[in-house]
């Protein structure tokens, strides 16, 4: 199997001049126990750069960039944290995409099957209670050696203020 990894860290709001609607809903807290339980959960000091809806918009653009480079019906694993803040857009719910909490286990199974597929290992946070480091790593797997033009993804990451952008090839 041949793999290409592309990674970068979001360091600013990628849609900075847009008006933002606070549409995402969080869990209602009503009792003493609710507040106590929430206070036992860890929080981080990682900055929040995007709202839920901006995050989905960014993910749809990354998917579009991958689909420009690889076949349209390629299986794609996309890491997604819950709660989603509302209904996710239809573009993320398409047949060939699986949204899951941690991509690694299923990624290993698909590598074992020697299948062409892509992974978006997305650790962008949308809420201070989410764990993550705002890094996105895209891993493209192919049974045969393929010379992709990585331009659609690299252009996107650069345009949307990702830093520490790197890419490398691996043979598995």
């Amino acid at each position, binding site marked *: 199997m041949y793999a290409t990894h592309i990674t970068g860290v979001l360091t600013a709001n990628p849609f900075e001049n847009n008006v933002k609607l606070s549409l995402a809903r969080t*869990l*209602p*807290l*009503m*009792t003493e*126990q*609710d507040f*106590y*339980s*929430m206070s*036992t*959960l*860890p*929080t*981080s000091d990682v900055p929040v750069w995007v709202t839920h809806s901006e995050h989905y918009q960014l993910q749809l653009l990354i998917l579009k960039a991958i689909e420009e480079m690889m076949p349209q019906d390629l*299986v794609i694993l996309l890491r*997604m*944290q*819950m*709660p*989603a803040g*509302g*209904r*996710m857009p*239809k573009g993320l*719910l398409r*047949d*060939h995409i*699986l*949204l*899951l*909490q*941690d991509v690694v*286990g*299923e990624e*290993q*199974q*698909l590598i*074992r*099957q020697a*299948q062409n*597929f892509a992974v978006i290992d997305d650790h962008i946070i949308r809420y201070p*209670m*989410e*764990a993550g480091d705002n890094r996105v790593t895209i891993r493209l797997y192919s049974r045969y050696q393929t010379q992709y033009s990585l331009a659609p993804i690299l252009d996107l990451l650069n345009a949307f203020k990702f830093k520490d952008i790197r890419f490398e090839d691996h043979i598995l």
Partner: protein
Amino acid sequence: MTLSLLSAAFTPIDSKPYDCQEDYLKRIGIISSVFHQQVDWVLESLSDNEKSSINRHFLCSTMLELPFTSGQITLDLFNQALHTREEKLRSIPVTAYINTYECASWGYTLRHYLNSASDQEYFLLSIIDANLLNLSFWQHNENWGQSGFGVTTLLLKREIGTQQENIADCAVTWNATPEFATVIRRHMKENDQLIMSLPFFPDNIRSIFVRMLGNYDQLPDLHDQWGHCFGSDPWVGIISAGLNNELESHKKLLACSVALNGYYCMSHVGIEPNSRFKIGEAV
């Protein structure tokens, strides 16, 4: 072709409040241990050779999200009960956790499996919902009445090379339950031999299904007994009917789930004459 349900088990999880700070990890340990005993029981339907062909075990949930999202727990905790080499060999550890599609997560996961694991005959999936943080929203609310917590494990078999009837989609309106009832009604018009296994809801919401789907066969709504068990509902309905000898192997079922945010799924499921069902003691 339909998928065959070879074995299925449900174990209720007691929702009694506890000191979540002190007993949190202990509680997960107990649930994890019972969960893997359930998986072992379900897998007894297979020979060792058949069992060794299974390389995936999907775990789905609706409401178990914040402990994962905040980084408080990881999937490893649900495999922690598999301590010894023998236990690890006997059981199949969880390989993926999917809660994104809420109650419809099992259907979207099944869709992925059918699309991407074309040479795999068996599909092992568990659904867990447990109010580990004692949050009142998850205990009871106007969207589904009383919640029912538990863990369900399913072992399904498919005929390789044939098309399985599995639909995973999303409502276009915010009245997801009546819209889903309409989607099911359209499906049942062409498949009126199916028996529907629907999500469990209190009377006021159940009436949507009663009124819109009253002309078609359906398994009893067990909300009064179990509460709303999230993605487990259609499977608890099938397990209960199986244990009561109310399922005939020539009849096919339509397992249906709908989520609060409008995601829905339905799948044609067959029963074998030797299909096994179990409801475990509450943990």
